[in-house]
């Protein structure tokens, strides 16, 4: 690895080039090394998506049709709206031109939610 264009060894070149990064003297190669995030994992401190809790956080649940290609005549949301903590119930009427969010068409698709409810609690009762 020695003998480069500038006459310095590759290691010296790398040291100079990456001078602002951590000391890389290549002594990790060939040895087992610890992951840098492992301490957080084993102490439960690594933040995952679900760990970012903040004031005003709302949770959303989607209701999907239990039947594929069935005709949606109507969606009755009154019971969902009455549940304590529920902030808003969305159906296809709220997003008339969206094709990828709640279904506004008259034909249900199992993979496409027919209605969504947002609530202050993940488990509204």
């Amino acid at each position: 690895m020695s003998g480069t264009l500038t006459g310095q060894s590759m290691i010296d070149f790398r040291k100079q080039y990456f001078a602002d990064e951590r000391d890389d003297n290549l002594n990790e190669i060939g040895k087992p090394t610890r992951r840098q995030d492992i301490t957080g994992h084993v102490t439960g401190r690594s933040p995952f998506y679900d760990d970012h809790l903040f004031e005003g956080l709302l949770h959303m649940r989607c209701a999907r049709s239990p039947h594929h290609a069935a005709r949606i005549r109507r969606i009755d949301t009154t019971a969902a709206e009455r549940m304590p903590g529920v902030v808003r119930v969305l159906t296809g009427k709220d997003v008339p031109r969206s094709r990828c969010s709640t279904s506004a068409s008259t034909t249900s698709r199992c993979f496409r939610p027919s209605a969504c409810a947002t609530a202050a609690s993940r488990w509204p009762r």
Partner: protein
Amino acid sequence: MALKPVTFTLNGEAKAAFTEDGQNLLDFLRRGVGDLSPKYGCGQGTCGACTVLLDGEPHLACLVLAETVEGRKVETAAGLGQVRPHALQEAFMERFAAQCGYCTPGMLMSAKALLDRNPRPSREDIIEAIAGNLCRCTGYEPIIAAIQDAAEGRARP
């Protein structure tokens, strides 16, 4: 929504907080008490990511009613190795027994319950103890090896 006061011990520390009606222990620990180390995986007792110890026994926090921990001892991964790393934590770090790390707190609690009641577990005992904890990064072998290491004192204390 009625609130109910609950006093219990969390990782050796006395705690008092209010639970909502029918709130499960996982939601109570995470939102009510602020201990984020038990993880919400499935919410229906399938994955084991929310495993905590109740008086030393492993329980799925998502299936336990929060008010039932009144006066009991709750242990979570956040309480492991408060002074120096627990043998299990050392072994998990040495053995590369985590990839994404989401199952790790639950795995640690199941493993701790096993080692507390059986300090010399066989490979089969270990597999049985973590049978309720799913790891989707397919890391079971390093996890089993790490628990074996911790039991045999191979991991640095």
